[in-house]
């Protein structure tokens, strides 16, 4: 599914850029991310425990950042496989200065396969959007004190 959105973050472009490349920030803000271990520059081994309410799946996979054009653009890919299926989220992020803050525009393609896709189509889109929303809310809070 194709998703997109914009968020305004209370920090300069440089600060936002640093944060979205910081593995600590990624680890604490990515919903369900339990483990993030660097295996190379901009590549990490990831373990995700993600879901909604009782429906939870553990996914083992990778998080990678590519197509870096500091400090305004990159692509971030998070993919994993697990018992409940597999998932792959690819996002393209663009930063733009806006007053004292930053306008963050993102477009993404979220693919979910396996059991979850076959049973949860009713809510997958909405839940996907919600989890991505959680990510940006967390970023916002993180940046709130460092404008």
């Amino acid at each position, binding site marked *: 599914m194709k998703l997109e959105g914009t968020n305004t973050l209370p920090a300069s472009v440089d600060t936002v850029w640093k944060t979205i490349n910081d593995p600590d920030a990624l680890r604490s803000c990515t919903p369900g991310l339990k483990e993030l271990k660097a295996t190379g520059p901009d590549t990490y081994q990831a373990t995700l425990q993600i879901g909604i309410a009782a429906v939870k799946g553990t996914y083992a996979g990778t998080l990678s950042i590519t197509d870096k054009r500091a400090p305004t653009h990159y692509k971030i890919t998070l993919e994993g*496989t697990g*018992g409940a*299926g*597999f998932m792959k989220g690819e996002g393209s992020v663009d930063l733009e200065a806006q007053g004292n803050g930053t306008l963050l525009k993102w477009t993404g393609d979220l*693919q*979910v*396969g*396996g*059991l979850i*896709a*076959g*049973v949860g*189509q*009713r809510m997958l889109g909405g839940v996907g959007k919600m989890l991505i929303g959680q990510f940006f809310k967390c970023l916002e809070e993180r940046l709130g004190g460092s404008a």
Partner: protein
Amino acid sequence: MSTRYTGARITRNEDPALLCGRGLFVDDIHLPRLAHAAVLRSPHAHARIVRIDPRRARAAPAVLAVLTHADLGALGGPLPRLIPHPALVHHKTQQALASTTVRYVGEAVALIVAESRYAAEDALDLVDVEYAPLPAAVRLEDAVAPSAPLVHEDAGTNVCARYTQRVGDVERAFAGAPRRFRDRLVMDRGTASPLEARGIVAAWDPRARLLEIWDSTQAPIPIRNGLAAMFGLPQTNVRVVAPDVGGGFGPKVMMFYPEEILVPLAAQRLGRPVKWIEDRREHFVATNQEREQIHDAEIALDETGRILGVRTVFLYDAGAYCPYGLIVPIVAGTTLPGPYRVPNYHCEFTAVFTNKTPVSPYRGAGRPHGVFVMERLLDRAAHDLGIDRAEIRRRNLIQPDEFPYDVGLIYQDNAPVQYDSGDYPRCLGRAAEMIGYADWRAQQETYRAAGRYLGLGVACYVEGTGIGPYEGCRVTVEPSGKVFAATGVGTQGQGHMTAFAQIVADHLGVTPRDVTVRTGDTAAFGWGTGTFASRAAVVAGTAVSLAAEAVREKARIVAATLLEARPDEIELADGKVFVRGVPSRALPLGEVAAAANPLRFAMPREWESPGLEATRYFAPPRGTFSNGVHACIVEIDPETGALSLHRYVIVHDCGRVLNPLIVEGQIHGGVAQGLGGAFWEKLVYDAQGQPLTTTFMDYLLPTAADLPSFEVGHEETPTPLNPLGVKGAGEAGVIPVGAAIAQAVEDALRPFRVHITEMPLSPSRVWELVAGARRSA
């Protein structure tokens, strides 16, 4: 032969046990030391298998075996090709377990056998498989494009077959035609959803070298023969039993599904019986599907609405493999002309591989598509020419005195499509009368004035049934007087235990309750092809009749010896055998059977063989053609797109009706499936080939709460092609439903000028069409 029971509306022999939970389905088979299997299935629509490591799974508690392709040895090759066809250039079948590539979500990758199904499912997580996903060809129109990802790389194309059938000169007919109408018609994927999913139990006796299989299949004898060949066993050392089967509808005819190889192999390797029961989620990916076709169709007519020619070019979605060949698109193309005179016809299809579950016939097997296309074209013509839609049909119907009528095409059995009998105008007239066609317009106006949108739809079809090659039956009378009939077809709810018993009862002068019918057990009867294509009543039924007739003749010969009379003086009635006119000198039928099997002394030469038993076969040279007309009244709420089904009328002609109760049951079930395909049932795959509808929450089967009562009218034009005069009725109910509903919905929404060219619909889609029509108005 008396006809006391043939044609009678009697309740079914099989029902008391089934209704009281005393049926025997595959999951009811319990054997000592039974082990349980689960299948690891591909989560990707298309991927390379980079690495597969079963060691963790093998080490898990309660796991007895894990099979991957590497363990299959000689059984690892492509599974057999059923029904080859010269046009089928790439006749691809899958392997019992995928080796290097998976081509649809659900393809079998490993088999786990454990002490319980729970433990087997636990171990599925422990098989380490690394996949390299590949681009998938999903949408039918995308898959046929030259740039599409290849489902089978070595084929170099996704087109597995192209085939054209022609009658007359369609180019000339269209060139000279005063009126031409064209439409693009789409029918979407569906699945048969039998109440019982698939399942198989296999037991191997190494001392007797006997392989015993219980399989929820529609065709146990080909399975037996195929397994014997694959496992290097004599056919008599393999027994396949299709016990009670909770619905087949087509997808349970295969040779083979992977599990039909894997489970017997596991039983042999382990030395323990193994059971695999398909759960519903698996069924949605691992059992064959059908119904996806896109037609670009045209009709040419004169100003009076007479058909001059019909042309259709269509795409057929074969899925990832095509074991069953081209039956579905061939049947679609040969069903399309229907009950009408179509002097010029061109039907061309392209069969396309996609990375989705493989396709094989599902009730109707392409007939619904043919009918949908033809009826929609006629409706379009009727509307634009200003001719009443029943009238335009009447003008084109083949008349009762035109039989046998050669359509000019070759059917799925490789024999000509030759309609043998029927009265098409009569069926149309009766359906019109039953639905109240004559004053429909006035009724409709009354509803519209009250702000309600109701519509009427009527659709006609002709159905090819009763094809060969053959079926057989052995009838035996035991000394108890009970009669046994064994035949090779399987039973999945068609009432064979009753209909065949009725035929035997009439020949032998007993009651149907005295006759036990045995189907689907290769040890009881080992020759036959299976239950599919609406053929069992015709082909097996006729064999039953021939065998019973032969037993009757034998009974007369034996009784003649015993009663010192001539055979032609002997009668059979009420379980007794007697000299005509002298009922006091009667012998119970059982006694005659006992006497026919003497323990000592010489046997009279005229008896020829012991016992009251005979085996006969029937091999029809071609199929026989049933027909029917459906009419329905629906109501649509244009604000919400909600559909109400007010009335549904079925007039059908399947020749001589053996048991109206059973035929009505068949029709009701078929119509329910047809209505499901018209408004509820749709298998959806996403752009990556992920199936999104793998539960009944999303694949919607209509329930009794959603459907109206059905009104059935029987017509009978007996066929000359078999002694019983019967034609098939198994698939009839489903065939014209989409067409009838499309016409009814269009009729209901006529003020909005909505044009229906797709199945299934939904409230959301209907509302979209109404809103769209409003905007462009």
